[in-house]
């Protein structure tokens, strides 16, 4: 039972981090109808900035710099690339983002080499024990931070003028333009926010018990894709649900791997994709999505 609770809590924590990434992915899709395959490289960029700066300026300023850096990279991608292609087919844009991803990832991994970077977080490998249940402090921090950010985001999306313009532009850009809503700004803000969220996620993907930031971190970031897709590509709450489902599935499948050995090794990595396939068979638009993901 204790094992189950530990796995569940660990899964919720990592799931909340996936939800952060998936949320950014969904925000970009809603605002610009672009499926952003460059998302993992935004995350890597944010993590890298934090990693190289924390020794000199301390962890928190470095984290802030990482968030700002990833937001800047996201904005730059929107401004320099996506904007030039506005009006072209969305599948063309999706392919353009693959190009951007290759470019960014190649440059970042060239800089990183084979090194594993610490991000200098204050939690280290300390654990928290409550009633026999043991959890790494980093997992608690991840859950709290992700939950906080997601709450703030959803409230802003629902209640602020920014949220109204975002939702209006997502639903009907041409009509939104008639209200004086600037579509370029909406799109730029979406990319910046997605970058910022990804940078926070980078931190929590690389803290204990993971060794640190390395090339393979972008692979972990890829798990946010099934999260976003199974939640429904155009649903913010779907991203949240999808992230948690992927996190918990992965955690339980990894934890009980020995009992599932008839399924072969590595089921933990596969489980998110299995869940996604099953969900999409039943609900092609995802759990909470309204559009067919196939439209891209």
């Amino acid at each position: 039972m204790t094992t189950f609770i530990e796995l569940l809590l660990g899964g919720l924590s990592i799931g909340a981090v996936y939800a952060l990434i998936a949320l950014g992915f969904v925000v970009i899709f809603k605002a610009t109808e672009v499926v952003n395959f460059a998302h993992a490289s935004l995350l890597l960029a944010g993590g890298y900035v934090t990693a190289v700066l924390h020794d000199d300026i301390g962890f928190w300023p470095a984290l802030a710099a990482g968030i700002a850096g990833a937001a800047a990279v996201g904005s730059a991608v929107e401004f320099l690339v996506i904007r030039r292609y506005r009006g072209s087919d969305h599948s063309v844009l999706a392919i353009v983002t693959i190009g951007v991803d290759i470019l960014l990832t190649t440059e970042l991994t060239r800089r990183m080499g084979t090194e594993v970077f610490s991000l200098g977080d204050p939690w280290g490998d300390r654990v928290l024990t409550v009633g026999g249940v043991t959890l790494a402090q980093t997992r608690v921090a991840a859950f709290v931070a992700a939950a906080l950010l997601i709450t703030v985001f959803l409230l802003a999306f629902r209640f602020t003028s920014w949220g109204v313009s975002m939702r209006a532009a997502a639903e009907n850009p041409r009509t939104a333009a008639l209200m004086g809503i600037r579509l370029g700004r909406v799109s730029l803000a979406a990319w910046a926010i997605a970058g910022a969220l990804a940078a926070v996620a980078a931190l929590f993907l690389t803290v204990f018990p993971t060794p640190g930031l390395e090339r393979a971190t972008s692979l972990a970031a890829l798990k946010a894709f099934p999260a976003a897709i199974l939640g429904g590509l155009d649903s913010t709450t779907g991203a949240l649900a999808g992230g948690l489902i992927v996190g918990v599935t992965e955690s339980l499948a990894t934890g009980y791997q020995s009992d599932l050995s008839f399924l072969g090794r590595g089921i933990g990595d596969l489980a998110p994709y299995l869940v996604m396939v099953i969900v999409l068979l039943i609900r092609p638009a995802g759990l909470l999505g309204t559009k067919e993901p196939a439209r891209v």
Partner: protein
Amino acid sequence: MPTLEIRALSAAYGPVRSLRDIDLDVPPGAITAVLGGNGAGKTTLLRALSRTLRFHGGTATGTVRFDGHPLERLRPDRIVAAGIVQVPEGRQVFARMTVADNLRAGALGAPGGRRAAAEALDRVHELFPVLARRAHQSAGLLSGGEQQMLAMGRALMARPRLLLLDEPSLGLAPLMAQRIADTVREINASGTSVLLVEQNAAIALRLATTAYVLEVGEVTLHGPADELAASDEVRRRYLGVVDEAAAADADRAAGTAVRALSRWSA
């Protein structure tokens, strides 16, 4: 000096020319109507004014002046800020947002802060009480007539000096169409100029002081609305009055060749 002054306006969607050398004036404080059948270029004209043609793959040339200031290089948000707001054809409410959020979206491009927006909201609720009652409902659940009210209320949230209306009576039952018409008159009476695009010539000519007839992208007739309403040409073609003798007269009086052509390609 007219509020809006359009000169030699042409528009095209790629190779498809949709407007040709339009000259049109919208005097201040009045309702000006533009009549025309399907594909005449009415919507294209409004898109050219709101500078949103490029979102539809179109471009425009020519000059447009609003109180003497040129508009033809401005971004759509500057047009809204300058006081010109378009209500799109087919209402286009944000169906997944609440009525209240739709109205909020309408105020986003307007100059002035919260106070101004609150006053605009009061005014809209006064004009359309149903929007206050349905404030927290999804706009997609409103009836067609209510959606038209919402689309107009949303535009009024930006406190326009010139309102561009694209077929507000489209698809509405006569009673509802009449209510919308009354509201247009009321909006105009409170100081907003209106450029009204309609296929329903009967309603439009009753509301407007001046009117233009658009056929295949060109202005073929214009003048005071009551004179147009009395003209045989308009009566026969846009008001559905069938009068053989008058029709024959009209055809003889005007160059028939052009009209025969336009009838085929309309």
